[in-house]
């Protein structure tokens, strides 16, 4: 049951329509929409795009991770929690590394963060696959545990919910491309941005053009026949969930190593990005490229709102801009009909052997 092209474009058209409508409504809330439109187009520049890419990192990685887990048949609504673990793990690692001979190395911190997030994802996988836990409830538990644990550990380590500042990733420029006139600044970014730009086509290729991608698809759509073909459904599902842990680890670490601080107060610095990631892959219809585009759209709106407040002095309510992704998903779910979830998602698979 593949979504047809027309269905896809209708879905995405509607989503974009809903978002544009939301923007228009926002314009009315501010003051004369025409003035706003002028300023919005004025803000769009390469530096704006660069900051939008930076904001896309955690959302898109969470979204792609969510796709891998759900495609294999395990709904992972703990993405937000995994991002929190990734963000906290990266900063705690940076902090701890300063006392070691390695020193505060962002790449090592990223790896450790990925290891932490993957470990939690593995626990989630065991709970769901071995002990047949309800995936929604277990995913919720992952989120709540991370939401409590990260500030808890912050207070233990640093005596407060926010960490002190540690080092960040330094920016990398692509030789040659970065000296291009005009768009050159797009090729100067931090490594997580480049990782994302590599991960999107990689994920798309992995899902659509490899045997492993076929197994993933089958594990979520028709586990029985995958089993009949001699492939262990459990292993494929483990792989899917672990991939979601790896991706969320990179996303969370990319977020935290951008500012060099872990903020554990309130909803933590992750602040709902995992949930936006979930909305992004629903709008992108389980396609990594679609999920990336949706993530980029949401991050772009966020960046726009930030820039408008700085440059034009608009008091655009960031909370109102913040609800646009959620409203967009509600509109899509209501008017385009059910998201076409993998048909065996959420179900346990028991081999007959």
């Amino acid at each position, binding site marked *: 049951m593949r979504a047809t092209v027309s269905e896809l474009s209708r879905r995405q058209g509607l989503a974009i329509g809903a978002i544009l409508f939301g923007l228009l409504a926002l314009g009315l809330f501010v003051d004369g929409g025409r003035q706003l439109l002028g300023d919005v187009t004025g803000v769009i520049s390469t530096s704006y795009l660069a900051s939008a890419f930076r904001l896309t990192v955690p959302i898109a990685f969470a979204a792609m991770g969510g796709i891998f887990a759900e495609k294999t048949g395990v709904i992972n*609504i703990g993405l937000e929690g995994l991002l929190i673990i990734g963000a906290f793990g990266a900063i705690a690692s940076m902090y701890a590394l300063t006392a070691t001979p390695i020193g505060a190395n962002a790449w090592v911190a990223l790896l450790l963060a990925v290891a932490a997030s993957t470990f939690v994802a593995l626990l989630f996988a065991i*709970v769901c696959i*071995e*002990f*047949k*836990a*309800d995936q*929604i*409830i*277990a995913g*919720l*538990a*992952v*989120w*709540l*545990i*991370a*939401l*409590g*644990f990260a*500030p*808890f*550990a912050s*207070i*233990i*380590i640093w*005596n407060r919910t926010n960490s002190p500042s540690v080092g960040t990733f330094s920016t990398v420029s692509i030789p040659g491309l970065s000296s291009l006139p005009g768009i050159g600044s797009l090729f100067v970014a931090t490594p997580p941005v480049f990782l994302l730009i590599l991960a999107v086509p990689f994920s798309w290729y992995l899902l659509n053009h490899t045997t492993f991608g076929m197994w993933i698809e089958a594990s979520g759509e028709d586990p029985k026949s995958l089993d009949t073909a001699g492939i262990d459904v459990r292993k494929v599902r483990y792989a899917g969930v672990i991939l979601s842990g790896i991706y969320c680890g990179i996303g969370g670490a990319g977020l935290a190593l951008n500012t060099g601080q872990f903020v554990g107060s*309130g909803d933590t610095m992750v602040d*709902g990005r995992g*949930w936006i990631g*979930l*909305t992004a892959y*629903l709008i992108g219809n389980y396609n990594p490229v679609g999920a990336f585009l949706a993530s980029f759209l949401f991050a772009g709106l966020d960046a726009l709102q930030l820039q408008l407040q700085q440059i034009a002095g608009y008091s655009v*309510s960031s*909370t*109102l801009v*913040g*609800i646009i992704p*959620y*409203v967009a*998903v*509600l509109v899509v*779910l*209501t*008017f385009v*009909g*059910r*998201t076409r*979830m993998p048909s065996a998602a959420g179900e346990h698979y028991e081999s007959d052997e």
Partner: protein
Amino acid sequence: MSRADWRSTLDRLVDASAAERIIISVTSLLFAIVVGAVLVFVSGFVADCPDPFIYFPGAGYGCYNPLEVYWTMLDGSFGSWNDLGQTLQETTLLLFTGLSVAVAFRAGLFNIGTQGQMILGALATALVVLHLGELVPDNVFGTLLVIPTGIVVGAIVGGFWGMIPGLMKAYADAHEVITTIMLNFVAIGIAFWLVQVHVGDLTTDSVQTESIPAVARLPPTIGGSRFSVVALVGALLVAVGVYLLYTRTVIGYDLRTSGLQESAAEYAGVDAKRNIVTSMTLSGALGGIAGAIYVTMVQYRWQAGIPPLGFDGIAVSILAGNNPIGVIPAALLFGSLKSGSLAINLTLGVPNELVEVLRGLIILFIAMPEFFRMVGKHFGFGSDPTAVAADGGDRS
């Protein structure tokens, strides 16, 4: 199958699993406490403190004694009248949010949106009692008029917010887990924006409404806390009412079947779609009432950063096996954990976020009855009990 057959099947399922549910809940709780103890003990070696309680060669000094932490928590929730008031205050709120989640669960619907329903209900109540409070006499008659009105308004607004995912589920087939999560964020955003820009106290920088008048406050009952026994009694009555609705009435039976077996319910002549909407609306209304009680008993205003009572409600309901009567002890447990968490922070310096970790652990363990079944089998208990869905449902 006729309607009566369905009813007896459901009843049998509920009865058969009741004992097992209690065992699973209690064991999950114990496991969460043990894992929490390990976490506290280990983190004690990372934390700094003037006089550590234990020394391990190689690992260094441990700051936290888990037994002392749990004892302080218990003492901090029941040790004095003030503590008791604090505990019962939390319990009352958790009763409403727990019932809100349970009502949806009974119909096989997963309402993660209680938090949003509560936030909007709380705002509506705050605004109504603020305005109504100026019009009524400042005496007990005024209170009798203002508070019930505020609660009804909170219930209506919360119910409306719960109805939306209900409608989307029934008529557009949109999964309620996704829609209720999304609607939480939308509710938080709308309420924040409304209060910040339009209806709040614009003289302060904090995002809050003005303080509600004395006439709209539930009278405090115990010590220095704001706990009001009126609210607790009301919550207990609602719990019993919900229980009776689902066990003794045809409406309750219809509500239960609609979300579980939509097609079967339709076959038995029940309007399943309408019942899904009704269940979610009722669930949302209970969430709205939780918000109303929060405003009139605890905060005395709407203020940004309402505590995650809705998410705690999920834990309460799951721990209670989604049984409205079971919600009472579960709410008391989480209420005492919450008020006890303040004590461990003040007395021992253990971060009170520990309680949130415990909440997550309890949910996690309850999600995996299979784990306990395997452990049980390993030690020779039980004779392969029938499978039970952990998510509350009479789904199995």
